[in-house]
């Protein structure tokens, strides 16, 4: 039953968050700042994950496709498609659920336990909207950008690993990737990024906002935010794949 209780309060949190901003310019400024924190701040980890993900996938595909009847460009096409359809959006977002989600939950949780949220409320500011909406908007805008970068770097990692190990040449990899490219796959990847961004930022904001107590509870909210986000990402991954592919 507790899951329904959580879901209900989460929906109420989202509903109460929707209101006319007290001052649009302040919200805009905060959204830009969050875009920098979430987007630029996550670039390095996204790049590292993407490069190694592409490299390892290339080596594993080559290991499994040992038949001389399979042409080398097929490896490029499989790596490129799986990066676009699954690895870049899902794996990257699971890592971002840890990085961005825990940061959001602990930031808002600390604001809650140190009465900063109460201070906003007393000033007549919709505290839910003020703390959460810039983060959600920033996530929805920046995650798809990060995923595009991730797809690109994943292919770069694959090209590098294929070339370094002598499995296939960069030209063969690119030929395979180009032949199998479908614009819908990219759109599907961006839809996933959009949904995951909303899940991570809103679920983490919700867990941060309902923190009560002290430092221990802030840590606990942060953990819950990551766990719930990760589970919801996996669930929505299945749902989106079933619906759209």
């Amino acid at each position, binding site marked *: 039953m507790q899951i329904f209780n959580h879901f209900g309060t989460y929906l109420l949190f989202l509903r109460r968050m929707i209101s006319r901003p*007290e*001052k649009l*310019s*302040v919200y805009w400024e905060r959204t830009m700042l969050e875009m920098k924190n979430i987007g630029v701040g996550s670039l390095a980890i996204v790049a590292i994950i993407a490069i190694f993900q592409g490299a390892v996938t290339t080596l594993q595909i080559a290991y499994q496709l040992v038949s001389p009847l399979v042409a080398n460009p097929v490896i490029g096409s499989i790596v490129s498609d799986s990066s676009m359809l699954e690895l870049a959006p899902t794996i990257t977002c699971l890592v971002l659920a840890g990085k961005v989600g825990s940061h959001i939950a602990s930031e808002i949780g*600390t*604001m809650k336990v*140190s*009465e*900063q949220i*109460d*201070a906003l*409320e*007393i*000033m*007549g*500011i919709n505290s839910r909207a003020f703390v959460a909406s810039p983060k959600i908007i920033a996530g929805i805008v920046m995650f798809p950008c990060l995923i595009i970068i991730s797809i690109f770097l994943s292919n770069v990692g694959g090209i590098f690993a294929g070339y370094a190990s002598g499995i296939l040449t960069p030209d063969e990899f690119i030929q395979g990737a180009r032949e199998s490219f479908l614009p819908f796959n990219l759109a599907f990847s961006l839809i996933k990024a959009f949904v995951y961004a909303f899940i991570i930022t809103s679920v983490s904001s919700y867990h941060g906002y309902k923190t009560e107590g002290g430092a221990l509870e802030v840590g606990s909210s942060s953990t819950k935010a990551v766990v719930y986000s990760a589970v919801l990402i996996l669930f929505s991954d299945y749902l989106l794949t079933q619906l759209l592919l």
Partner: protein
Amino acid sequence: MIELLDLHKSFDDLAVLKGISTQFKPGRTNLIIGASGGGKSVLMKCMVGLLTPTQGQIIYDGRDFHKLGNKETRDVRREIGMLFQGNALFDSYTVEENIEFPLKMFTDMTPAERRERVDFCLEQVHLEGINAKFPAEISGGMKKRVGIARAISLDIKYLFCDEPNSGLDPVTSRVIDELLQEITEEFQMTTVINTHDMKTVFDIGDHIIFIYEGNKWWEGKKSEVRTADNPELKSFINASYFE
């Protein structure tokens, strides 16, 4: 003026406030005293709108706070300033940005006008020149004063202070008390202070209510506290001397 009429607040079956009625007049430092767990903080949270009373009315200059519409509630809230026990300054903002924040949100002042107002507020709390510092870089007493400066940055009519002296040394406590009395008189605000510091009571208590087990047990002035024949109040005062 703030008027409380038969205010009750319960959490499930636990009655925390049991029918409190009083008036807090402007230009006076109104103190709410009482032991921890007696209902002081709940009373203040009801007054500022962080909690909704189970029964009773809170009237801000003729406006029944908990019966107002959204816009009217926001209007009243913008006349309220609050100094929190833990300061509640925004960690990621500098002192200047903290004080400037309500001005940015609710006024159309230019950046130059806002800076001028920030300097004026800092001057009022005797903290000139610390604009660029972050809350983590200043002392507890300074944080309290920045909290006061932020609270008065808009032209507020009602100032609420929750344990303004907690965690401060006696000298700094005195400075904060004097400051609160000074700005109350200067801006003719209705100031309500939650405290269990008897020094504050004897120094600045223009109007005092003593809360005991959720009831208003005694009401009077600082000159009457020592001679009050209320046994619970006497015991509270005596206990305070041995702290």
